[in-house]
């Protein structure tokens, strides 16, 4: 998992995050499939399509199911393996992503605000998302799927440390 010169961040996110990603992926999956079903029922009325296509519109639904199921199953577990974070030497190091991976380094001295946010599913599962903001969007980090208590403690620690280190770098 480590790419060449970088080591893994120390901490995994909460194991409950797997459920969170599964729920979120399911919502998208259901929307996608129901969209495909609606389209499949509508297609037979399109007169400009050749017979063999408009007659077999269920193929669309089947195709969507075949294509969308593997990522639905894989995403939560891949994400759980990839998403990790660490706070060392006054730098937050976080890794995230599924198909596209991201590594973010945010020094605590440049942090402007630390927020913790909870969506519906997150509240249900007792999870929280930590949003670490600097003056730049690219230099900001979002750590998802943390246990609520861990997130609260980390937010508190970051905010306190950021205040101690505050220098005028915007």
């Amino acid at each position, binding site marked *: 998992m480590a790419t060449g010169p970088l080591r893994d961040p120390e901490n995994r996110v909460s194991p409950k995050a797997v459920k969170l990603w599964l729920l979120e992926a399911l919502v998208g999956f259901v929307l996608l499939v129901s969209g495909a079903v609606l389209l499949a029922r509508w297609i037979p009325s399109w007169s400009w399509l050749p017979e063999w296509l408009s007659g077999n519109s269920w193929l669309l639904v089947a195709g969507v199911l075949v294509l969308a199921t593997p990522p639905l199953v894989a995403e939560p577990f891949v994400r759980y393996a990839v998403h990790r974070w660490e706070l060392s030497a006054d730098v937050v190091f976080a890794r995230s992503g599924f198909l*596209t991976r991201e590594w973010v380094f945010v020094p605590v001295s440049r942090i402007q605000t630390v927020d913790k946010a909870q969506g519906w599913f997150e509240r249900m599962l007792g999870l929280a998302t930590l949003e670490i903001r600097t003056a730049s969007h690219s*230099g900001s980090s979002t750590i998802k799927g943390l246990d609520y208590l861990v997130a609260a403690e980390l937010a508190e620690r970051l905010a306190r440390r950021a205040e101690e280190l505050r220098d005028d770098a915007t």
Partner: protein
Amino acid sequence: MSEVPEIATSAPRKLHPKVLLIAPVKMLPSLIVPLVGVLLVGGFSVRSYAFAAFGVLATVVFAVLRWATFNYEIVGDRLEIRRSLVSRSVRTIPLERIRGVDVSTPPMHRLLGLSVVKIDTGAGGKGTEEGELDGVTVQEAERLKSVLLRRARAAHTPLPTALGTAPPGDPTASPGTPSPGAESGAVTSGAGPSAASAGVGDVPGGEEPEERVIFKVPRTWLAYGPLSGAYLLTPFALAGGAIGLSFQWGNELGLGGDLAVSAGQWLWERPYLLLVAAVLLVVAMPFVGVVMYAVFNWDFTLKERGGYLVAERGLVTRRSVSLEARRVRGYEIVDSLAERWKGVARTWAIVTGLGDSETRGQLLPVVPRPVAHEVTDNAVGPFTAPLRPHPPVARNRRLFRAIVPWLVLALAAALAAWVTAQPLWWIPAIAALILAGLGVPLGLDRYRSLGHGYDGRRLSVRSGSVRRAQAVIERRAVVGWRLRQTWFQRRAGVLTLIVGVGAGKGGYEAIDVSEDQSVAFPTEVTPDWLTPFRT
């Protein structure tokens, strides 16, 4: 404007009454259409004239009311803008938050000797936190500019304004210490000779900061304008706008769609007319481009005044944008293919907390490269290190991206031609094939552009071909790093490295660096941040 110099800043002020002449004229275009409609529908009867007159009167009354209920005042360390037309609202802008004051003079304002003052607070959102004073005299605008900026500057430093000392820690303010009683040169955006004295009189003990012209762009260089490509499409935009407008007005005048359809048919039967129009538009491109560019960038002058970089430009609307030199963190130098061929480039400053930095941050319009570098070396500082190339696999990726999509399109069109036996399909097929061929030099050039470097104080990243951009950023402006790797990049063993900067666009990318470079470069610039996480 300032009859009472001592307390000039502590009484509510109104916009200049002359602005009342502007408001109804500005509203005219939106009035004409309904007016014409009323006149047409109602016939030329007394009643329709009454309606029309009522409309005009209402506009004027509205403008007067708005003027009468609007005032602004500098209260202590903040600027208050009050409106009480519909509901009472007070917008309070703390002076310390003011990042820049932007004075512009649209044509009608210029006729009347007025200016529009925009106050930039660097609040990310558009409009919410900004202040606009539309219609103060040119002198008042200059006074406001100097007072607001001086206060803003003073608020950043512990020194009280009354001492009239230039704030320390202002390395770029060249003759930063203003000589007592020195008046600003009256070269400022059409300001009358009284501008400087008004500024001096208003703040007791305050002095006008000295002004120095860093660079004035010669008029002959306006010819470089169309090379950027930005203004080349203006003939088409103008034609499109005219057609859209005629449709809209046609509808309002009851000329309806039938006429449009028949006009279209008439044109369709005479394709040579369309061809002539198209050729005319294409031929007009460079000329209209030069004219438009000249209108916006006429007499571009970059000055330095009391710790501010002031960029003035424009023929019809004269704009003056002030950037606090202390907040400049770097620059971005951009050139198109044609500009590179001519050896010219455009320059933007990378400034912290500047909203709308694309238009406001412009340091220089199209000027020869050496001149651009001279000015940026002066205003920001030189970047001396060479740019390091990115790994060869990045070249393959650039080539793939520049060629393959067109190749796929060509194949699809060829397939369609073969299946449908329609020879017309060969046209897009061949066009796509030509574009795929052009992708070879384009991809190679894109690869050649890629680079990153660090000279110990500033870092730089460069990318792009048709629009090549090189950003040079001070080390202290870096607030974080982000590495991104798509699935394809993972297979190729490269990453995109994004420098998080608390200024300008916020993030500057080094595309397709190798895995070693992706960690080595941030470690080189900010050693403390990444070392703990290296294997």
